[in-house]
């Protein structure tokens, strides 16, 4: 029995004559698609800086006795006699973390893809507040510029770790980076938070108020749900860091003692502060710091869930449960921050509470992870590059997440806190899950964004040469932590008990150089395809969400008249005129609605 003939598709929106000049179109644009691409490009540029910094770290740790005369010439402030200066090492470590977390993953994945996809996937012509959106990008750009500039001030960039614990970050004499570098870091963060707030407000308002007719919340793709929860989380969690940053700036420059106790002696001089508490900073910082990782993770997971069905040709497993899990994780993530502070000197009773609370997060995350895995069950798998990266996401989410069990309970954490176990864990989650999901997203949506396809062979090579070294590096680091190797160490050569980690560090460094080199495959592919890539159709992956009903790239103004949605986002595996799937706008009379 033949499927009924669909009614004639509605005429494409009349291209409205775009009268904007070059500057309004590409520089100060209020079009969410342009802003999204601006964020992505900025984030990728910052990633190059972050990766270069990582290479310097691994050069030092893998080859602690070597000299690098070339680096002395290129970076005279950081290398003397071919040897890396410890003050430079600490600045590099601090800035690597700050850049990768806030200026790479957050810019590309959260603000970049968030801005690009959310209006399209809810059937809107733009974000709720387009002008605010443009402002958010340019403040973000300024924030990045301030941070990069901090490398060049006296004392160099901030060097107290991305966590910036006072008194180290408060006292200029405690470490060179705590001179102007730390102040610029704090100002950069303040700008970042302002930008993120504007972006977050936009995403939430857009999801709640501009959805196309028929697009109920439970018909939204998981991508949109993840950005929705992530944005609300960010809006509520960032302000305490703003408050903390203000207080730290006041301690640094205006003589207050929010975080500085009495009796501090630095450079053989008594510091005049009295009565402050270093722990206060930690509580405020981690109140943001923990939800921040979910702000980054949730969109990564949501995107992975939405890319998958295009290559498995069946719906995601357990859509509803996954939505509830996203919300549960969002809520729970706000009450567990103390697991970063088990040995900080806070009360042991708090330690017991935070252990129990943290363990509860494993439940929704497990269900979500199992849903992702189960979505592969019975699939007709097409292993194109986005799908390869999604498989990597599922894998790293599982293994990285398991490491969280160790760190989330106070007992095990006593041995593992501030060791390479933590470094391995968070890199697997933030570096792995989010990074691979970012690559999946770029390979998947590049055709839509730029109207051209990326080279599939290079993309697949990129996957293999990224996953293998990535897993090697960060899996091995878990065991370095079990051996007791502390983090942020310039070298491990001072300790007998760490002597035998030399070989492991060498292997990790070599894998890291391979990992960094492999990213050139991606960069070359990206740039080349922008210019010479094969022209892409409007729906090359035969996917169901609303952006695929528009041309590639979509016109300014997106849909024109709002599309009418009659089904959820996972109508795969159904007999339909377009093949085995129905986009969300296909009327229910043409193809039955299954959910």
């Amino acid at each position, binding site marked *: 029995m033949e499927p009924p003939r669909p009614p004639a598709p509605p005429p494409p929106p009349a291209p409205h004559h775009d009268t904007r000049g070059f500057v309004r179109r590409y520089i100060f644009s209020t079009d969410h698609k342009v802003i999204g691409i601006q964020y992505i490009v900025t984030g990728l540029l910052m990633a190059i800086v972050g990766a270069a910094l990582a290479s310097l770290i691994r050069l030092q740790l893998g080859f602690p006795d070597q000299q690098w005369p070339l680096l002395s010439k290129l970076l005279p402030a950081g290398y003397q006699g071919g040897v890396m200066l*410890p*003050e430079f090492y*600490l600045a590099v470590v601090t800035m690597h973390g700050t850049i990768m977390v806030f200026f790479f993953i957050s810019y590309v994945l959260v603000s970049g893809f968030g801005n690009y996809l959310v209006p399209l996937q809810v059937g809107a012509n733009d974000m709720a507040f387009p002008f605010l959106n443009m402002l958010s990008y340019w403040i973000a750009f300024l924030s990045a510029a301030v941070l990069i500039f901090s490398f060049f001030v006296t004392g160099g960039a901030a060097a107290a*770790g991305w966590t910036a*614990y006072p008194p180290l970050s408060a006292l200029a004499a405690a*470490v060179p980076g705590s001179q102007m570098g730390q102040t610029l870091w704090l100002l950069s963060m303040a700008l970042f938070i302002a930008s993120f707030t504007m972006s977050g407000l936009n995403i939430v308002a857009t999801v709640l108020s501009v959805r196309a007719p028929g697009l109920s919340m439970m018909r939204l793709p998981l991508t949109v749900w993840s950005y929705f929860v992530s944005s609300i989380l960010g809006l509520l969690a960032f302000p305490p860091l703003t408050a903390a940053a203000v207080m730290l700036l006041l301690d640094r420059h205006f003589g207050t003692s929010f975080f500085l*106790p009495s*009796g*501090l*002696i630095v450079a*053989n001089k008594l510091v005049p502060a009295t009565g*402050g508490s*270093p*722990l206060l900073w930690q509580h405020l910082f981690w109140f943001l710091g923990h939800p921040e990782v979910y702000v980054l993770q949730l969109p990564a997971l949501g995107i992975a869930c939405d890319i998958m069905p295009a290559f*498995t*040709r*069946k719906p995601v*497993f*357990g859509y509803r449960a996954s939505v509830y899990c996203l919300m549960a994780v969002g809520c729970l993530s706000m009450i567990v921050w103390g697991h970063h502070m088990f040995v*900080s*000197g806070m009360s*042991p009773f708090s*330690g017991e509470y935070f*252990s129990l609370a943290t*363990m509860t997060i*494993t*439940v929704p995350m*497990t*269900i979500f992870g199992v849903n992702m895995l*189960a979505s*592969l069950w*019975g*699939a*007709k*798998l097409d*292993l194109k590059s986005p799908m390869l990266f999604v*498989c990597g996401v599922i*894998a790293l989410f*599982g*293994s990285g997440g*398991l490491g969280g069990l*160790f760190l989330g*309970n106070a*007992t*095990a954490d*006593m*041995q593992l806190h*501030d060791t390479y176990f933590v470094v391995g864990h968070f890199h697997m989650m933030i570096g792995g899950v989010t990074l691979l999901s970012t690559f999946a997203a770029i390979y998947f949506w590049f055709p839509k964004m730029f109207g051209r396809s990326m080279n599939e062979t290079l993309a697949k090579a990129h996957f293999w040469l990224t*996953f293998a070294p990535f*897993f090697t590096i960060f*899996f091995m680091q878990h*065991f370095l932590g*079990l051996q*007791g190797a502390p*983090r942020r160490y310039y*070298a491990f050569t001072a*300790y007998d*008990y760490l002597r035998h980690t030399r070989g492991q560090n060498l292997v990790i460094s070599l894998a890291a150089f391979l990992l960094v080199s492999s990213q050139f495959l991606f960069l070359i592919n990206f740039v080349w395809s922008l210019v010479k890539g094969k022209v892409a159709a409007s729906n090359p992956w035969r996917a169901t969400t609303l952006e695929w009903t528009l041309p590639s790239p979509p016109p300014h103004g997106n849909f024109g008249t709002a599309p009418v949605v009659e089904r959820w986002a996972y109508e795969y*595996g159904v007999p339909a005129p377009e093949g085995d799937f129905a986009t969300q706008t296909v009327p229910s009379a043409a193809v039955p609605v*299954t959910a």
Partner: protein
Amino acid sequence: MLKKLEGSLVALLFAGTAIIGAWWGAHAWLPSLASRHGAGIDAMLKYLLLTTGVLFVTGYVVLAYFIWKGSRRDAIGKRFASRRTERLLAAGLGLTMAAVAEGGVLAIGMPVWSEYFDAAPTADAIEIEVTAQQFMWNVRYPGPDGVFGRTNPTLVDDTANPLGLDRSDPHGKDDVIALNDITVPFGRAVHVRLHSKDVIHSFFLPNFRVKQDAVPGMTPEVIFFPTQTGHFELACAELCGLAHYRMRGTFNVVSQKEFDEWLKKQQ
């Protein structure tokens, strides 16, 4: 054909990763154990390594299988699992994870944590004060009178009087000072009071499974019971500045006689 080969290779990637990872993880990584409460921490770590190891291998093998099978299919299998399957899987695995995580934490972890923190120092515990600074560990013993002398930050001079000892306090006259070297007699509990002069440091004894941040303005305390004699190392585990990586101390557990001799030599 090519599709099947590719599917097999990707499946092999994940399965291979699991097997190699499990092999790598199955070594003994922990530094040798030298404390009583540390046995509880090691039990927790080993429990977690075993359970997460099993989950890790299972998960990756299942992933590999799905990839291998999926790349061989011409059509999808059942499109929708039944609501019942969805709920069973979610509830089943969610509860399993809760049991592993919460169960393990409660059963194994809590008693260790409480024992460690609720432990009151025994009467014969050796009392030590450790004052961390950039980049060394100042160690002080109270001497025969068992009382630490007063200190005053205004009296601190890094060369002459790093602890800021108040010389007018009679209790301080018999205090014993050492630098980067802690020696304790075997068979007694160790009670350490931590101070910091400048930034946050962290008192990390890898072999004793002891880690406690030394926070300026606070006096966190650590109590533990060494179970081995020997010479062990002390590392700083909280970024404290340029020489954080070589802020090394030694922690020696010796016989009571050797300890008394050592103490006399320091005075």
